[in-house]
């Protein structure tokens, strides 16, 4: 039976793919090299450039200026500080990520770190190393002024556009249950798409963490007073690259104690 053979072979291939990649390789325990750096950090130092996944569509965090073609923002500055700590100079190579691509890019090793408004959750911690929070922000709601919506309660029966990374969805849902507003959610992969959907009237509200939302505020829209469920942003790295995670955490701790982190936040007008 030639046919059965073909089917079986293809099944085997799929199973091989799934289990092959699924097998957990022996954890690369960071063995300190001569100068006290773990292997994963040393590799970055030897390469001479830190590869970072950043957002390019979030003003003030990671945003590619269409005029200068340069990616800049608070998170880019943070990446530079970490790069200085590891390599000695500010040498980073940025890769644009979305909520959908940041996980795979870390897993494949295409980037060393993801600093992309990445909210830390318990579930995600199982798959990646997250640093301590470098920024904390509440979920806010952006609506059209003409809609007359004043609070979450007014959103009863309305549609809310959120990004595909459902931490904001969960946060709003919990709050909506409390004020007894029935809301539904539509998820899009990028923030500009949600803004487009809001303008087209596809959604009645654009919701994401406040500081991101302020980048999309214009004359016809307004941000409601409601703010809930503070979200922690952490620097993500691959599980196993524990030495790198440690360096990142140390850097953030230093920035916090020196007050430098607050200065960086202020520089970009966040909060």
């Amino acid at each position, binding site marked *: 039976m030639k046919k059965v053979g073909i089917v079986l072979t293809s099944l085997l291939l799929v199973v091989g793919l799934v289990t092959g*990649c*699924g097998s957990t390789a*022996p954890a690369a325990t960071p063995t300190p090299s001569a100068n006290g750096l773990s292997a994963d950090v040393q590799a970055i130092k030897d390469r001479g450039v830190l590869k970072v996944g950043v957002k390019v569509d979030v003003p003030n965090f990671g945003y590619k200026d269409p005029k200068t073609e340069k990616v800049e923002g608070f998170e880019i500055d943070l990446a530079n500080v970490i790069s200085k700590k590891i390599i000695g100079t500010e040498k980073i190579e940025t890769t644009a990520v979305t909520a959908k691509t940041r*996980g795979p890019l870390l897993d494949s090793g295409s980037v060393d770190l993801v600093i992309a408004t990445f909210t830390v959750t318990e579930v995600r911690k199982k798959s990646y190393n997250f640093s301590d929070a470098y920024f904390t922000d509440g979920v806010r709601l952006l609506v059209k002024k003409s809609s007359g919506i004043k609070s979450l309660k007014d959103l009863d029966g309305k549609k809310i556009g959120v990004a595909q990374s459902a*931490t904001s969805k969960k946060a709003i849902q919990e709050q909506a249950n409390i004020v007894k507003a029935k809301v539904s959610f539509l998820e899009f992969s990028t923030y500009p798409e949600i803004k487009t*959907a809001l303008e*087209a009237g596809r959604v009645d509200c654009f919701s994401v963490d406040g500081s991101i939302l302020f980048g999309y505020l214009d004359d016809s829209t307004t941000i409601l007073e409601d703010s809930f469920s503070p979200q922690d942003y952490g620097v993500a790295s691959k599980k196993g690259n524990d030495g790198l995670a440690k360096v990142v955490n140390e850097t953030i701790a230093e920035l916090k104690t020196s007050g430098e982190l607050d200065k960086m936040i202020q520089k970009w007008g966040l909060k």
Partner: protein
Amino acid sequence: MVGAFAWFKWEALFRDWAVFAEGLRTTISVTVLALTLALILGIVFGVLGTSQWTFARVISRIYVEFIQNTPLVIQVIFLYHGLPHMGVMLPVFAVGVLSVGVYHGAYIAEVVRAGINSIHRGQMEAALSQGFSFWGAMRHIILPQASRIVLPPLTNQAVNLIKNTSVLAIVAGGDLMYRADSWSSDNIYYGPAYVTVGLLYLLLCLPLATLTRHLERKSGVSS
């Protein structure tokens, strides 16, 4: 080191199977309605494309060329984000049926046209000379013969249509692909999510593809 396919991610997927079942349901309903629409459009415009009236041929040509030469994604975005600015707010389900149906209608029109052209024109002339109207001749003489030739490429179009419903994911269409995107971007268990969805699409398409091959053999199209 946690693999992209670690077992606990699979467990989470099995726990949330209802999410994927819901997506599968949407994908199947969009497929059925879009396929119906595509067949109607395809047959009408396919027949128009072979008619003697230049005007009908031109209309058919414009439809086919316009749709075939613009990306489906643009068509979907136009219906979803563009039309509301002109005061037309189609529900996302309708956007899916309409965009995918019209898109594949254009391809099916070409398939139907080719099928009709493969029937010797003597058949049509004979039918007309016997007092058949144009549509009557089509209905009773030409289309039954053409359908045998057209069926294999037609089922092939159906397979493509199923796969193309996945563009709805970009406009929050609630289909299988959207559910996978949504579920996996929350917990970042993308490995199991996309493999499962891939297998579900395979499950939908493989029987149709097999049918195509069977029909091809029966009609003697393939050697």
